[in-house]
């Protein structure tokens, strides 16, 4: 197909205009795709590291608020509590993973965890606790729906 010469320049400019607009609007995938709000309470907020103790008990209070009133069934959605070193979306140490239905406006879960000392020691980075909600994605990595993060303060 031969393009008539008089259309060559307009077509080129149109192509470039669309090209530049596309990349100006192009956004990388945001990790969180839904508006479910997750609240996370750490108790205590500061962990005192006792070098003689192998394990430290930390209570975590979790609250999921569902302003959309959608029913999130346990077969499709699940929650994960994890510990990361620095960044919110780096691969983390999974402390607890569980499924529950989130149908009401809000649900609360209270959990106590024992964390082994070796996870916390010898690291000078910030530790973050995440309370994440995921949607299962076949045999692919689950999709993160909502997240709440708190920095875990450690004292020796």
């Amino acid at each position, binding site marked *: 197909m031969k393009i008539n010469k008089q259309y060559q320049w307009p077509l080129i400019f149109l192509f470039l205009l669309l090209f530049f607009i596309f990349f100006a609007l192009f956004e990388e995938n945001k990790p969180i795709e839904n508006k479910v709000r997750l609240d996370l309470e750490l108790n205590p907020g500061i962990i005192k590291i006792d070098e003689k103790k192998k394990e430290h008990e930390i209570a975590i209070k979790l609250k999921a608020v569902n302003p959309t009133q959608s029913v999130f069934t346990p077969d499709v959605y699940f929650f994960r509590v994890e510990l990361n070193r620095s960044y919110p979306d780096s*691969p983390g*140490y*999974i402390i607890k993973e569980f499924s529950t239905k989130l149908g009401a406006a809000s649900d609360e879960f209270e959990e106590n965890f024992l964390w082994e000392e070796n996870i916390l020691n010898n690291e000078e980075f910030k530790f973050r606790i995440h309370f994440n909600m995921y949607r299962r994605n076949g045999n692919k990595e689950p999709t993160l729906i909502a997240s709440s993060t708190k920095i875990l303060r450690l004292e020796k």
Partner: protein
Amino acid sequence: MKITNVRFIYIFAFFYFIYFSTLTYLKWQAHSPSLDYHAYLQMYWNTANGDILMYNRASETQYSLFSAHFSPFLLMIFPAYLIFSHPLTLYFVFGFVISLSFIPLYFFALDKLKSRLSAVLIVLSFYLYFPFSWTHRHGFAEEAFATPFLLFAFYFLHKNRPWLYALFSFLTLSLRINMVIPVFLMGIYSIIKNKSRKQGIFICSLSMFWLFYTLNVIYPKHTVENNSFYVYGFFGDYGKNLREIITNILSDPSKILQTLTSESRLKYVNGLFGSVLFLSFLSPDILFIGVPILLLNMLASYTRLGSLWTYYHASSLPFIWLALIVTLQRLGTLWERLSQKLTIKLNKTFVINILLVVIFVKNYNIIKHSDNGIHYPFSETFNMRTYERNKRDDTADAILTTIPKTNSIATQHSYLEHTAERKWQFPTSNFSGYYPDIVLFDSWASSAEFKIVPDNKLYSKIWEDSFFFLYSRNDLLKIYNIKDFVYSTYKNYNERFEYLALVNPKESSVFYSSLEPQISIDVNDRYHLVQKLEIQKDNPSALEIPVEKENLYGANDLLHIGKERSGNLKAEILEGTDFKANYRVLFSGIYKFEDLTHKTNLIRINLNDLNIEKSKTYWLMLSLDINRKNARELINSYKTFIGIPDRTVKSIKDETADTNVYYSFDSGKKWSSDAYPDKKLVYAIYYGNLVTEEKGVNLENGSIIISGTPWNLKNQLGNLLNYESDYNSVVIIGPVTEIL
């Protein structure tokens, strides 16, 4: 169309593609990594799975390629990966496009020099030109595509095909931001030379807009607030933003001159121009397009830019060679004029071809005899071990291809091209502090990162063999009785998710004399080795010793195939208190030269029938089995390794214990024991029954590694219930979701 009618250049380009693809495939299957390919592969896999152009490299966060380089071209070739989702697809596309470089170069030379022989000599010399080979044989980068694109752009400009010129200029711009420079200057060239002037003005304007758009729209959008743009890091010594960098470069001309004339920079210039006898400088009207990028590379704080063992000069090569062709044409014309006044009557084409033969021979000599030629199979420095595959590669592949893509992995650089098709992957060199699901260590990885296996309670060792160590993070790992898993607990796992399962034979264990190999030592007709074996328990099942065959003629044994040589490696186990006098040979094995590779092989000796007892003394002797046919034959040589004793094993304190590595320099007549104090010959001894029958075993020591949905695992593991005497537990890796 008859094959004889196909022009030489198309056949040449096709063979170059086959040549590139073959070498790349051999390198890939031998787990010899190249620069950055794993990062691009991970990015493509992420793109195919919805995270467009995202990757993490050694970082613990995912980021977009556009934060580093605005390279929309990578999205243009992405459909190839969608159609053929294979780790090598990107390599093959790369090789195909690079192979096209020869075509415009050939036709330009043919046009200018009017001789097919001259054009062929140009193409052959360009193939031998080492800065070209390094742009695409060392690794993958979008910038390397600039060589064919700019050659096509210039050729079409020369042929007055304005829209094809504009198309290839656009493709070049879409590689990286620095491509704005040669594309802009080629636009200027077109205006000055009055060739496709309208398109030249358009391309100049587009280049300027591209620069503005990338710096003001793309980079701010993809860079974390208040962070300096990634590309400025290449010039970090001069400043944090464009203005600072330019001001500081221009404000100190003496420093700039000093940098440009330093030894390494002059070597850089010599590597690029010396190979073409500096003739390109005689056509500055073309060379000026490619020079600014070279100057920037030479000034950069990131010294890799100023090295020819990468791809950063890829956009300058076209103009060095196009300028060479124009110079040759001009010299030919000059010669024609001169020869009218001289008595010597030599055809100008003959003179040009003489120069081209000199260039060809010069390039051939460079790659034949120097490290610059490492990528050419006929170079003395071509490294055979990079392309060889042995049994350990099979083991690595059995593991790497089984791990589900949903699991994050940390492993040595050698294996990253095989683990890249997943969201998260990390090099073990930066492993500390990350928490990937699975960690694979190989003591003999070709990327030469000899690693101490981490003493980290966050991870558990789930399998080890052949000096491979596979770890899983504790929170993901559960051990079940196979029967329990098959009958009930498989139901606890998500039926749609894939899990990794590992079954090890009962009561199996390994003892390593050393996990930190430090020195390689020769074993040949003169040098023999002996060390007392440390036997931990009665009846060990196998002994493994790492060995490599040596190149007798330099790095490239390929050049000497068929030459006469003799001598196979001999490994013996002696029983007795004194290996020199009071012993009997319990085992003697011959390992043929042709069956071993130049990279580490593990020779495995089955000890099951030897009835070895802990209370007795055993020695391992390595020597040469030789039956010389004539005096001209070369004697083969082998290497094995010694290292520091394994720190994880508590040694039995016995003052009388003989830990010496005995070394003989005269074929075993006299023995020295003080050459390597506090070191041990590296070997491994296995305990437990080696399971050899067919039970789905896919790893060396009788272990089974499988993956799949819980139902798949249940079915596969169900077969093992018939072999309860060999296997009783299974390790499942993947979180159990507890339904509350």
